[in-house]
Structures are given as structure tokens and as C-alpha cells.
């Protein structure tokens, strides 16, 4: 799978996102988890701790009451069942002083008569005869001589029968003041229920978690830990006391669970907000931070397109500034180099042109001087004319330092050459010149047409009696076309190929200077599809065509 190469900006943006959102997510998740861990630990352990603490407190109190009942019982037994009110009250006050309520201590005879009561109040369940084997009396009878704690009709009673010779002589019943027990649990901030071992609630700091009978809810009494009740979640712990009571501590976890959900929701919202902001801001900031990269990229693209006059202006950060400055410097250098190269190339081209221009001279001059020598013997007038023409031509070629001349100028000076040819070949050579008047002011390279004539003569008179050359010049679109056509012997196919191949070379490798030189000059001077082409047919003639761009001197 080929991995798509992302842009630098995208990478920067992803990096931003990765290093902002991911850590935030990880941290908030870790915080949540740690929070949940510690919350559960704290909640459960504090619940258990409080349960144990309440249990211990209640056990302590029950111990105090039981010991007190034992003390009073043994006192009664010692006094042979003569009740001494003072003794009992003394013990009562001594032992309950810290609780602020002496409670109701009742001494009953076996016939259910109250022998002593500390509060002048004897509950019906001790005196009425239907209770003889019911409730508290039942406990006294069932557990002979033992100090028992029993819950009857909402009263927590410490009961003890005093037996002598296996017979019940008296019973001591102490009704524990409810406020003392309530005081243990009311100040707590979780639900605490004290029940007997069958689940009948004695004291509770809530009206909840009990059924309509006043029994603790089955779900709570039957399990410990997290439990669900009426759609609410609780955490419950229980301790069964030695004395037959059970202490339940129950946390209402609902609010905490709601709180946790709320925290999760808030964190989620914050997280989403952060994510959105990051997403948005990374788009902006990554674009900002990579703006210089973009600039550099654009600059390179411009350069690639050939525009060298771009300039990088970066001031945002040092590194990019250095890159930008270096780029500018490099581009400047490149531009300088290119300029120098161009200049150099121009110089080279110029000197080449000059050299090429000068190449026509030796051959032509030798031929013409030969002719003049010959003519001087037979026709002095023609010889004179030839000398004039030759010197005119030479002057033209030497004098004209300008590279380009007008068509008219060149044609005028071509006349010198035509004169020489006319004299040389006399009637055997004929020519026509047909150049449009409207291109007369256009600029062309000096001595452009002369090599064509020279070429026509060179190949045309191959066994021919007569040669006619037609020179035509006209404008076609933005080009100037010059055609030199003759009806001479034509050029061999082989030779023609060689000439054409030679024209395509950068340097001349043959002895066909004329055509090559003119073609080379044109292609050095003008860039584009300009130059010379040649076609010829054996015994029918040759056609050379020049194409150059049309331009006029300013």
C-alpha cells in the first residue's frame, strides 16, 4: 500500500493535534479513572469504617447497660429480693450519667407486678397477662438467668430473669432510652439502620430502606456491597453485633453517580471544545507556520516556469529567513550567471557571424581576379567594370560593420556581384530579380542573397550552356522569404543529402561554405524556425529558400 505523502502543513497540523488532543484525552481519562478508583475506595472504606465505629459505640453502650442490669440483678439477689430503691437509683445514675438519661428500669415480680420503676411508667407488654409468654417475658423465660437484649414494640430492652433454685424470683427489664441510640446515628451523614437480627428496625436516621412493616428492605439485609433498590444505587455494609443487633450503613451512591456522570459530561464537553478549537486553530496556525514554506514552494515553482525575477520576503522565523535570503542570493547569482552566459553567447555568435561573413571572400576574389586578368587582355572596359564592381563589393563587405542592412541596400550591393557574373559568363547567364517593394526597408543579414547566386552558378553550369537565375523576395505572414531558383544542372541526390545534413550540424564539416554559412548565420542571429532549405532535381534546376523574421529598423 503506497502511503500518501502529506503536505508539510498537514503534518504540522497532525502534530499539533496529536500533541494537544491526545494528551488531554489521556490525562482526562486517567484522571477520571483515578477519581473513580479513589472515590470507590474512599466511599467503601469510609462506609466500613463508620459502620465499625458505630457498631463499636453501640456495643460499648449495650455493654454498659448489660453490666448495669447485671449489677442491679445481683444487688437484688444479694438483698434477698428486698428492693432498695436507693441502691438501684445510685447504680442507675452512676452508670448512665454520661448518656444524660437514666432510662426506665423496671423490676417485675414473677406475677407480672412492677416492684420498681425508675420512671413511674410500666409498659403494658410487661404487665398484661396476655404477655406472660409473649415478647419480653418470652425472652426472660426462654433464656433463664441470661442478660438478653430484645426489641419489642419499638423498645430496646435489656431483660434478665433472676432465678433462685430454678425458680423465677424477679425480672429486671431496662428500656434503653431511644435518644441515646439515636444520638449515635443521627449525626452521621449516611444512612444508618439498627435492626434486630430479623431485620426489624429499631433506630434509623432515614425513613427509607424500610418496608411498610418497619423491617429493613430485603435487598439490603440480604447482601453487602453495591446494590440496586427501586432504581437507586446504594453501597451497603453491615455488622452483626454480639448482642443480637445488626448495624447497617448504607451510602446513597446515586448522587455521587450523578456527580460522576456530570463530571464525565463536563470533561467530555471541555474535551470536545478543546478538540474543536484545536482542530480549528491548528488549521489556522499550521497555515501560518507553513506560510513561508508555501512562499518558498511558490517561488521555486515560479523559477521552474522561467520567471527569475521572484523575491522571497520572509521575516517570520530565523531559519526561513535564512532560507529566503539564501534563495534570493542564489537567484541573483543565477540571474547574473545567465546574463553573463547570454553575453558570452552573443559575443561568440557575433564573432562567428563575422568569421562566416568573411569566408566568401577568398574563393570569390580568386575567381574574379582570374577573370579580371583574363578580361584585361581581351576587353579592357569589362575588366575595368569588373574591378569597380569587385572593389564596391569588397568595400561593402568590409565597411558595413552593422550586422543587418535593409533589403534595398543588400540588393543594391548585390548588383556589383551580378555585374561581375554578367561579365564573366556574358550571354550564358541571365537573371531576374523580383522583390516586393514593401519589404525593401526590412532588415536582413548583410550579403544574404549573394551566396545563393554563388551556389546557383557553382552547380548550375555543370555542362549547361545557359543559366537563368530568378531571385524572388516577399513577405509571408511575419516572415520574409527569399527564393533563388535556377534552371541549371541541378545537384546530385547524394550531394543534396550531404548538404542538407551539413546544414543541421553546428559546425561545417564539408567544403560547401556558401549555403552552410548563410544558414548558420541566420540561426545564430535569430532564434526560431528560420534558416535555409534546398531542393533540387537533376537536369531541372535548384531551388534555395531562405526564411528570416521580418523586422524593421527603429
Amino acid at each position: 500500500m503506497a502511503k500518501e505523502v502529506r503536505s508539510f502543513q498537514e503534518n504540522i497540523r497532525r502534530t499539533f493535534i496529536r500533541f494537544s488532543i491526545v494528551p488531554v484525552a489521556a490525562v482526562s481519562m486517567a484522571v477520571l479513572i483515578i477519581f473513580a478508583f479513589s472515590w470507590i475506595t474512599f466511599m467503601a472504606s469510609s462506609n466500613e469504617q463508620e459502620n465499625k465505629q458505630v457498631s463499636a459505640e453501640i456495643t460499648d453502650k449495650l455493654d454498659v447497660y448489660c453490666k448495669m442490669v447485671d449489677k442491679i440483678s445481683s444487688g437484688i439477689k444479694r438483698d434477698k429480693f428486698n428492693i432498695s430503691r436507693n441502691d438501684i437509683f445510685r447504680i442507675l445514675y452512676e452508670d448512665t450519667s454520661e448518656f444524660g438519661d437514666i432510662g426506665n428500669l423496671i423490676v417485675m415480680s414473677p406475677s407480672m407486678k412492677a416492684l420498681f420503676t425508675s420512671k413511674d411508667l410500666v409498659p403494658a407488654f410487661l404487665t398484661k397477662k396476655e404477655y406472660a409468654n409473649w415478647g419480653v417475658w418470652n425472652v426472660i423465660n426462654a433464656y433463664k438467668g441470661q442478660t438478653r437484649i430484645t426489641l419489642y414494640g419499638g423498645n430496646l430492652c435489656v431483660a434478665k430473669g433472676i432465678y433462685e433454685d430454678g425458680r423465677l424470683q424477679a425480672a429486671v427489664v431496662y428500656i434503653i432510652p431511644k435518644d441515646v441510640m439515636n444520638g449515635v446515628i443521627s449525626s452521621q451523614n449516611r444512612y444508618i439502620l439498627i435492626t434486630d437480627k430479623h431485620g426489624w428496625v429499631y433506630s434509623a436516621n432515614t425513613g427509607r430502606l424500610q418496608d411498610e412493616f418497619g423491617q429493613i428492605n430485603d435487598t439490603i439485609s440480604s447482601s453487602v456491597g453495591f446494590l440496586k433498590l427501586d432504581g437507586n444505587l446504594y453501597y451497603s455494609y453491615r455488622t452483626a453485633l454480639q448482642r443480637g443487633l445488626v448495624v447497617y450503613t448504607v451510602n446513597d451512591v446515586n448522587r455521587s453517580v450523578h456527580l460522576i456522570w456530570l463530571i464525565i459530561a463536563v470533561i467530555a464537553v471541555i474535551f470536545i471544545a478543546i478538540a474543536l478549537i484545536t482542530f480549528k486553530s491548528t488549521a489556522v496556525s499550521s497555515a501560518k507556520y507553513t506560510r513561508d514554506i508555501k512562499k518558498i514552494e511558490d517561488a521555486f515553482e515560479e523559477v521552474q516556469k522561467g520567471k527569475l525575477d521572484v523575491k522571497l520576503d520572509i521575516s517570520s522565523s530565523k531559519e526561513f529567513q535564512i532560507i529566503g535570503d539564501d534563495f534570493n542570493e542564489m537567484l541573483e547569482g543565477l540571474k547574473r550567471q545567465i546574463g553573463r552566459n547570454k553575453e558570452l553567447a552573443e559575443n561568440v555568435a557575433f564573432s562567428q557571424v563575422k568569421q562566416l561573413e568573411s569566408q566568401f571572400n577568398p574563393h570569390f576574389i580568386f575567381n574574379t581576379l582570374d577573370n579580371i586578368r583574363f578580361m584585361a587582355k581581351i576587353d579592357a572596359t569589362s575588366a575595368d567594370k569588373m574591378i569597380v564592381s569587385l572593389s564596391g563589393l569588397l568595400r561593402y563587405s568590409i565597411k558595413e560593420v552593422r550586422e543587418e542592412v535593409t533589403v534595398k541596400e543588400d540588393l543594391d550591393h548585390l548588383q556589383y556581384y551580378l555585374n561581375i557574373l554578367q561579365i564573366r559568363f556574358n550571354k550564358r547567364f541571365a537573371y531576374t530579380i523580383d522583390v516586393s517593394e514593401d519589404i525593401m526597408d526590412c532588415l536582413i543579414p548583410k550579403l544574404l542573397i549573394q551566396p545563393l547566386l554563388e551556389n546557383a552558378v557553382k552547380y548550375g553550369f555543370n555542362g549547361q550552356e545557359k543559366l537563368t537565375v530568378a531571385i524572388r523576395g516577399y513577405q509571408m505572414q511575419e516572415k520574409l522569404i527569399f527564393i533563388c531558383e535556377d534552371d541549371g544542372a541541378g545537384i546530385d541526390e547524394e550531394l543534396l543529402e550531404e548538404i542538407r545534413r551539413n546544414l543541421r550540424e553546428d559546425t561545417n564539416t564539408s567544403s560547401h561554405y556558401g549555403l552552410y554559412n548563410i544558414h548558420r548565420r541566420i540561426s545564430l542571429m535569430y532564434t526560431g524556425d528560420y534558416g535555409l532549405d534546398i531542393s533540387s532535381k537533376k537536369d531541372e534546376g535548384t531551388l534555395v529558400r531562405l526564411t528570416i523574421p521580418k523586422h524593421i529598423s527603429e
Partner: protein
Amino acid sequence: MKKWGIAALCVILVAALVIYIDWRGRSYAVEEEEKLVVVSPHPIEFMIPLIHEFENETDISVELRSCGTSVAIDSIVNRKDVDIMWGGSVLSVGPYLDNFYQYETPNKAEYMDVFKNEGSSVTCFSDVPSVLMVNNDLIGDIEITGYADLLNPVLKGKIAFADPGRSSSSFEHLVNMLYAMGNGNPDEGWGYVKKFTQQLDGELLDSSSLVYQGVANGKYAVGLTFEEAAVTMLKSDKHVSIVYMKEGVVSTPDGIYISKDSDRIENAKKFADFMTSKDAQQYMASDLGRRSVRKDVESSSLVVPRYKMNNLPVDRNKVISEKDKWIEEFDRINKEGRDG
């Protein structure tokens, strides 16, 4: 890859949390103790002291479910975990006796003779006579001694009566009426029923509790209810009085029914024994206003002793077999009275 590492770490953390919560908050069941599941239509205040004492004496924890008679019957017949139905008159439970465990409590020897003849599917628990309950403040000079007095035009619309199709105590009153006003032949009693329904002014209550509460709260002057409810109202200092119909009082026992499917038959037997024991019956009679089935227990001072009432015998088999027919007939007459 790094990304997978982070994801794995997250998963591990979450898993650890879940395991921790599970371990920390595992709700382990507290050791199962001896227990008994009881359904009962009895009033809650009536049940609490008896159940509490039963638990203390036997160390069997009772799971108590309070509901109406028909729901109680339904749950003991159809639900596996219910061991005992406590309460429900023999008349209304009669058709379902096949679903109950046969048990003869040793206490049966001490029963009054009238209750000794019941089959062993039912353990008779108490005697519940039908009574009229009168609001002393509202009744004025009108003397109510029996059914005949209810036809007094002044009382029209002031009589509380529940739908016999829904309330078992109302059905027992219907039976009582038919036998009492038909002079022992229930088919003769419909003439009175027709006049009686016209006195109701078209109003039938949905449950028996609305009857005694309605009278106690003064919404009605007189109501047709059962003795224990009236005694409970008396004990809570409502200005009401109990009238035993001079035409005759039908009194049917209610019972304790042990489910045939119970897994805790032994505990259920202990329950039946305890509830029919002398101590429990004595306490019930003295403090809760309920008539004992035992010979050796004295009635509460609030109720008239059985021998002073005009006891009316009924053919129980006939009542059980005609129950649906009679309820239908009552509905028809009541509707006719209302429309006419």
C-alpha cells in the same frame, strides 16, 4: 506501534477499574438463614407483632408480603417461592384447597368444636364475623340493629358497601344477607338484596378498606364490614360502634394455608403451630381484636362473646359452588336498580 500501546494502556486501565469496582463492591449474599415467605391480606398493624414474636421465638426470618385476598391466593397458587398464605376466609379460599399441604396442627385439640371440622388443608386461625359498623356521630337517632334497619330511606346513599366481586368481606355480607333475610334459604333473600342495592344509590366501593375507613372518616354513616376492621377502628379512637345483625351473623374462620410446593414445610408447620398457640391466640384476642379459634382463649372486651350473637349456619358447599352465580346476580340487580 505507539498508538496501539496507548490504546492498550487505556483498555488495561478500564479493565482494572472494572475489576476493582467488582471486587470492592461485590455484593456478596449474607449467609442464608432460616426463612419463610408469607403472603397475607391481613392489616399490617395486625401482622407486625405476631410476626416479630414468631421470629424471636423460632429464629426464622419471615419475608412478609401484604396484599389483597385475591392477589394472595393467586401468588400462593402460582408462585413457587411463597410458602404460606396467612389469612383469607375459608369461603373465599375454598375453591383452591387442592393446592395446599395437608397439615393438622397439634393445637387443633384445643379448638372450639365449630372449627374442628375443617379439612387438613386449612389451619383455622381466627374467627371473623361480618358486622355492621356505625359512625356514632352521623347516625343520630336512627337505631341500627340489623339488615332491616338499613332500608330506612334516610340512609339512602350513606351506606358503605364494597363490590362483592372484589372484596371477600363484602361477599360474606352478601351470603349473610341471603341467609339471614331469606330465613335460612338463600334463594329467598334476593328480595331484600334488591331493596338494599337501591339504598346504595348506585355506589359500590372498590375494596373493603374503603368501607371501614369511609365510615370512620364520616363519609358514610354505616358500613358493611368485618369485625376485626371495626375493632381496629374502635381501638384507634374513632367514634364508631359495632352492630351484630339481629337477623343473624355468619361468621367464617380464616385460615393459614401452606403451599404444596413449599421447600420449607417444617418452617411453615412451625408458623401454623405458633399462630394457633395459646400465647399467640391470647395476644391476638386481647390486643388485636381478633376472635380466637381456641376454647382456652378469652375474647377481647371490645367484642361480643360468640354465644351472645345470633349465629347463623350456612351451607358452605352451596356457597362455594354458587359463589359466581350469586355475584353475577348481585351485579344484575344492582345494575337494574341503578338504571331503573
